[in-house]
């Protein structure tokens, strides 16, 4: 469903799209069934001259069945969705696979600062590369991000990864992603942060190993003494 508009560019984008598909199938069934029965009843029991309405108290088993069975079935569907969702959630938010690299993402009114670890692949060392509104990552590498804010709440959202995490001032929140497709895609701020909320547009550039290495050395050369 989402793929019609945005590619899946991370390892977990597929499973998030999967749970969305599961919900669509189950909920779609209920929706069509309920609306179908609803409109059929309106048509079938429309006012006819001389025909009086029936007196039904709610205890009639043959009709009550039509409520208790669906009722139980809804519960069963819910259980399937819960199980599916918990698995996806665990995958994305509760577990943390080993990092190939760590970056820091800092939101502020109204720009994103990305701190890349530089050639030594260690964050908070002298060769770190700072960019504004552009994130550079290598494809097929697992990244941890440390998400922070300098002022108000922001939210780091990369739709093609299906990733989202709020940034809270005073905290450094850890998350992860692993990009699977090369290209350049949108990064949005997903929490209203003032009048510049709409201009906090950034881009993530997912690069193959050569491109990424080239970018690192260019950027390092630029800050070399």
């Amino acid at each position, binding site marked *: *469903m989402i793929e019609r508009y945005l590619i899946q560019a991370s390892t977990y984008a597929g499973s*998030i799209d999967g749970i969305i598909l599961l919900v669509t199938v189950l909920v779609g069934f209920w929706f069509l069934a309920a609306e179908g029965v609803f409109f059929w009843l309106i048509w079938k029991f429309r006012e006819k001259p001389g025909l009086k*309405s029936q007196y039904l108290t709610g205890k009639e088993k043959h009709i009550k069945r039509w409520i208790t069975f669906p009722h139980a079935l809804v519960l069963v569907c819910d259980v399937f969705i819960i199980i599916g969702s918990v698995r996806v*959630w665990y995958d994305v938010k509760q577990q943390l696979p080993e990092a190939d690299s760590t970056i820091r993402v800092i939101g502020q009114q109204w720009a994103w600062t990305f701190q890349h670890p530089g050639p030594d692949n260690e964050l908070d060392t002298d060769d770190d590369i700072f960019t504004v509104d552009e994130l550079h990552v290598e494809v097929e590498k697992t990244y941890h991000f440390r998400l922070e804010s300098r002022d108000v709440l922001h939210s780091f959202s990369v739709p093609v990864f299906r990733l989202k995490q709020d940034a809270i001032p005073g905290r450094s929140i850890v998350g992860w992603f692993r990009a699977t497709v090369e290209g350049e895609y949108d990064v949005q701020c997903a929490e209203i942060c003032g009048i510049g909320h709409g201009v906090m547009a950034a881009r993530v550039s997912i690069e193959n190993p050569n491109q990424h290495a080239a970018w690192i050395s260019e950027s390092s050369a630029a800050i070399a003494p």
Partner: protein
Amino acid sequence: MADTAVDVHRGEPHGHDDHHHGPQGLLKYLWSTDHKIIAMQYLFTGMAMAVIGGYMAYVFRMQLAFPGISVPGFGQVSPGEYNSLVTNHGSIMIFWVAMPVLIAAFGNYLIPLMIGADDMVFPRINRLSYQIFLLSALILLASFFVRGGGFGGAWTAYPPLSAVGSYNQTQIGATMWLIAVALEFVAFLLGGINFITTLMNSRAPGMKAYDIPLVCWMIVIASILFMLSVGPLIAGAVMLLFDQTLGTGFYDPARGGDPVLWQHLFWFFGHPEVYVVLLPAIGITIEVIATFARKKIFGYKLVLYTTVATGVLSFFVWAHHQFVAGIDPRMANVFTITTLLISVPIAELLFVIIATLYGGSIRLTTPMLWALAFVAEFLIGGVTGIYLGASGADIYFHDTYFVLAHFHYTFFPIAIVGTFCAFTYWFPKMFGKMMNDTLGKIHFWGTIIPFNFIFIPLFVLGIGGQHRRIYNYQHFPELAGPGMYRLREVATISLLIMLAFQLVFFYNCITSWMKGARAGRNPWKANTLEWTTESPPPHGNWPPDQMPNVYRGPYEYGHPDREEDYWPQHQPT
């Protein structure tokens, strides 16, 4: 015991214009304690605020579809103004339209009439509640004209943005907004006391608990839900007010505060709040469907129990608004479970309403069209909520237009469809005239069809990753393509069409009131007590010696022992 100063004039026949009580003329309306007049005050204030909230939607939707346009009737929309518009649109629609119309207006009007009482038990507190409510509305409207303009931090007002003026750039507006909301809460706490105690105690002789019309139950359960959930937010609002004005640091991490605390306090109230407005709308739908399908509601007690279950469960789902907000990820699983489980009693409620149609004799009057539309549209809102309750899916959908479309498919049926349903149904009782049914149907279709064309495009935009509260998508290449803009245009033009059709409604109201056919006491041949008195009812609702007694439940339609297909509650067996 109670000191009873019974009004000696009550025995004399008097009509609509009551000359025996208190001040005359305009003062009578400003200072009246009659529940019907207070109801009208809430109704008209709420409808006026709806016009203002609708105007705001018009302005920001024009900006979204045609970025940079000078919107007719507003001008160019700056980013700051955009934030103020969306903030106040949301706040107005929930706090100053849905609640006053569905709960305060129809609750005040209907509860005494439907339980056979002559007024609420605390008429002066009732009047006070409206006056506080009016004050809250005026403060909110005044906030648009102060330096910096109206508050621009979203109706959810998350700190630190909402706590610090230099962050939100609407410092005075932010405090006025907060005070307006707090006063609105106080008004509804006061109003709720009247609804709850009047329903508990002042029923007509013979009216047992299960003989009470369901809309009364719904409004009272909603009031209880409100009273039990708003407390923590009032505490949180006091803390936010102090952060804004005194420089305290309740929500400032640099001083040991926690921004997420506000979110918990807000949503602990915020989630039950949606049921606070849903329940009255469902109650109204039930009354209208029973009357025009000529059917007893299929399972009165079932409706009551599932409603209470929904209400109780609603206290345990709040953090589904905060899945990605930085809460402990393990907590998210708990809230996914509770949130999905709450779909069960709600689904049951809808199934019971649908089942009521079985075996009926359905008459598609204008109120019935609205009631049926409520069910059909709310189903969409309800099922799309499942995506958001499932934490895994919510990672993607949070803060997108998918959320926005979901809650408009719930709130619009509740606040707009529910209001038109109630208004067209009880108009004859309130004003003594029949509304023009043809105009009513034109207004109905002219509202419902465009409504879907506004929000289905927004679902699509949300699926495409469009985030909320952004005034111009031109900065995001994935959202700036012609396909995306076409969707925005469709939504906006549909809104214009829908707004245009509201003129039909206003025209119908005025001409029906002035020269519509006279309504008798019971034009719909309904069973409940409000239809036993004059249209409109006099002060005191019935002559004191003719207060009704009750002999049966409210939905005895189609009874086999009767020739007529209805059996009013007050007729002796």
